[in-house]
């Protein structure tokens, strides 16, 4: 902590004395570099942190710069009033450009945003109000009483303050609730939705942040250069900006800043060889993408990794500790129905995955869903948790109709789930994975970030304390800061359950929780699931391991080819002729002498299902 304060102090002092050592041209370059750094932070927030491919950042820059120029020269506004309106205008445009992100992602979004940026360039080059290809000159600079901001030295301090605040705010966002949700969305938007993150709102937030930084950079640019023209906001510059972010490291704001400042300086230094320089950036971007996808910011971590591997890891061995049971609550005798699935059909192209499936689960129950591979079990979970919309039928959860509810709505209503093929957030630590689910605040409370940051901090500290509790309870304390994807399978499964429980659900859906676990781990799992139920959470689990189902579940629903073929206690289900048929098939197998119907009176017949 002390070294960190010292570092920050050193940087502040260095920033303070910097102009004293620089010539007037150099300080101009530094001023430009800071503007690009602001732009790069915005880009990093949208692309690196939130995973939204935004190729319109240079247009946001342009909207900010042009708004100031137009408002001051055409409408006689003062610089500061124009600046405020310009930032607002940029954010409005940013939200508009972000709307497509609600419907499409990845390259689709890249092409649409790039197209809109091209449209913007087209407009400024042709519109009368923006001065056409000549641009607008004679933009009045900002004034402050007693300070002559027309001096580039003094303007530097203005920029440095704005930049410093913007960077700190950016880092604050990234490291607290909002940024964590954005990063979770980037890593796996489906899982993030299932943990209660309001994906549409978060996507808009990413564009809001990107345009906010773009607008600020545009305002500063107008005030510094006092002249705006279309070529500054060209697609070529957009790609240079992209190169800055990629080379610096898109997932680290500091990396983005380093990339932006570094590349601006290099570009200036090579200004006589600008084409060769461009060739160079292109080559470096390609090499970075192939060999160092985390950019310069990722280099220290990679080096550390290599170093540790060389030395052979000697760190204290982390171990998975036993689960600490929840304190049980008293159970009511009259259990209410918590979940009702009624006549649900799910049709994919040419395939009816679920056919009029109905079931009802009572509060406090542990329900097993079994069936051969491909019988529709996971599809049923996806319909219940809002990932798929049922083709027909209704789902009711906790008394309300949730047939068409989105996953985040269901999560906030108290439904939580795990995934068959582990969907942990790969770039978040184990603790952060838990924190995403723990955080039950709605995304619209992000207004706090604008006006009451201490409130955000207080909330954050409470969450962290709770996260440590969850980690301890599940015996994961040693792995709190680990990268989840590097951990053994059994531990990852445990983390998924811990994450799902961190959301304090009323209903927990477990999709094959025992897959890939060894005997001892299965026993631990049984204890965990029992304790979860005793704490008042209803559990539905999909399982192949029939032993687990037999010993855990009070009631079992059997699916086959999308139909419910039996329901009842495990003992009832395994003796049902339909189940034996589904699992054993026709006489061909019976002829093999391994199966005789007389054995049907044995309750253990249930284990047919494991075949």
């Amino acid at each position, binding site marked *: 902590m002390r070294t960190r304060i010292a570092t920050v102090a050193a940087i502040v002092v260095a920033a303070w004395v910097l102009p004293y050592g620089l010539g007037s041209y150099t300080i101009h370059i530094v001023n430009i570099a800071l503007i690009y750094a602001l732009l790069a932070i915005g880009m990093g927030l949208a692309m690196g942190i939130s995973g939204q491919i935004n190729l319109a950042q240079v247009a946001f820059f342009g909207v900010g710069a042009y708004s100031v120029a137009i408002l001051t020269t055409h409408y006689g506004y003062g610089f500061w009033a124009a600046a405020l309106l310009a930032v607002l205008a940029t954010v409005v445009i940013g939200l508009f450009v972000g709307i497509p992100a609600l419907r499409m992602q990845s390259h689709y979004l890249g092409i649409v945003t790039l197209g809109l940026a091209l449209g913007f360039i087209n407009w400024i080059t042709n519109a009368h109000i923006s001065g056409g290809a000549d641009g607008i000159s004679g933009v009045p600079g900002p004034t402050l009483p007693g300070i002559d901001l027309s001096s580039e030295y003094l303007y530097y301090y203005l920029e440095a303050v704005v930049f410093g605040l913007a960077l700190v705010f950016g880092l604050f966002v990234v490291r607290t609730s909002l940024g964590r949700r954005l990063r979770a969305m980037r890593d796996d938007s489906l899982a993030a939705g299932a943990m209660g993150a309001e994906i549409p709102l978060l996507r808009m937030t990413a564009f809001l942040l990107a345009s906010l930084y773009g607008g600020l950079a545009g305002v500063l640019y107008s005030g510094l250069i006092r002249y705006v023209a279309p070529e500054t906001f060209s697609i070529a510059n957009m790609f240079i900006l992209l190169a800055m972010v990629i080379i610096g490291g898109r997932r680290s704001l500091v990396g983005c800043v380093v990339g932006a400042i570094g590349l601006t300086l290099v570009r200036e230094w090579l200004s006589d060889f600008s084409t060769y320089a461009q060739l160079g950036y292109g080559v470096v971007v390609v090499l970075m993408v192939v060999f160092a996808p985390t950019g310069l910011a990722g280099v220290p971590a990679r080096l550390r990794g290599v170093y540790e591997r060389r030395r052979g890891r000697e760190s204290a061995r982390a171990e998975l500790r036993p689960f600490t049971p929840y304190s049980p609550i008293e159970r009511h005798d009259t259990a209410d129905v918590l979940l009702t699935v009624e006549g649900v059909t799910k049709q994919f*192209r*040419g395939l009816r995955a679920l056919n009029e499936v109905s079931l009802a689960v009572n509060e406090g129950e542990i329900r097993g869903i079994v069936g051969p591979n491909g019988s529709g079990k996971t599809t049923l979970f996806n319909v219940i948790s809002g990932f798929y919309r049922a083709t027909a039928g209704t789902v009711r959860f906790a008394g309300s109709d949730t047939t068409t509810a989105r996953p985040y709505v269901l999560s906030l209503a108290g439904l939580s789930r795990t995934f068959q093929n582990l969907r942990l957030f790969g770039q978040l630590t184990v603790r952060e994975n838990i924190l995403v689910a723990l955080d039950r605040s709605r995304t619209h409370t992000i207004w706090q970030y604008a006006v009451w940051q201490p409130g955000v901090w207080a909330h954050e500290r409470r969450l962290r304390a709770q996260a440590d509790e969850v980690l301890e309870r599940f015996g994961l304390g040693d792995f709190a800061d680990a990268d989840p994807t590097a951990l053994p399978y059994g531990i990852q499964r445990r983390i998924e359950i811990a994450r799902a429980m961190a959301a304090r659900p009323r209903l927990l859906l477990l999709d094959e929780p025992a897959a890939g676990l*060894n005997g001892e781990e299965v026993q631990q799992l049984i204890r965990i699931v029992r304790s979860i139920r005793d704490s008042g959470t209803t559990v539905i689990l999909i399982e192949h391991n029939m032993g687990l189902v037999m010993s855990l579940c009070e009631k079992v629903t059997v699916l086959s080819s999308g139909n419910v073929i039996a329901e009842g206690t495990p003992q009832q289900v395994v003796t049902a002729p339909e189940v034996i048929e589904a699992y*054993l098939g026709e006489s*061909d*197998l019976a002829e093999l002498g391994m199966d005789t119907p007389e054995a049907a009176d044995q309750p253990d017949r249930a284990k047919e299902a494991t075949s």
Partner: protein
Amino acid sequence: MKVITGTTAECLSVQELSVHYGGVQAVSSIDFTVEPGQSVGIIGANGAGKTSTLKALMGLVPRSNGSIRLGDKDLTRVRARDMVRHGIGYVPEGRHVFPGLTVEKNLLLGAYSRAWDKDTHRQLEEIYTLFPVLKDMRERLAGAMSGGQQQMLAIGRALMTRPRLLVLDEPSMGLSPKLVGNILDVLLRLREEGLSLLLVEQNAKLTFGVTSHCIVMENGQVAMRGTSTQLSHDPRVREVYLGL
């Protein structure tokens, strides 16, 4: 009529096969052989490492250790795409037909490593004899077929590669009992014709019905091995995998 013409079986021997994903060991040092004309099964629960074993055998996932021989050829360093030229046909888990191509194109692609000539079309007719349903649907897109038909197509496609050894990964997955019965008939017929089979299954009953020898996998290791008859009467296997 014999449906798999011009093939002679050879002995597959796999030694010390291991697979790691990241730091996690999915398969640790597995040995097994498939004698000419023999059918061998691998059973085990989800996540036991069965599919990883097959994929490593086929070269579809990197092996961290192990050697593979077929007859007198060493296939350890042969790439996945060349396995088929050495006589190993593969039916992947979940069928993996080419959904946007017609049934016939799917089958023809099985013969990709040879010229498409008269001989290929004769073989196509043989496959249609084995699976009449494919003939009726030859111009339909594979993606529009039912799961059982896709499974037939996947097996047909693998047979078109002229395998000496057919490797099947969970052919019963997602199929109704009747269709599992059909698959069983087909596999028994192929076995009668002298094709070597390596079958990975969750469905222990199907496996014991088709194979002469079996391996039981647990946690990436061989937990048990023996003849299928022995294993199907072994109390532990009966309890865990057959539920008897």
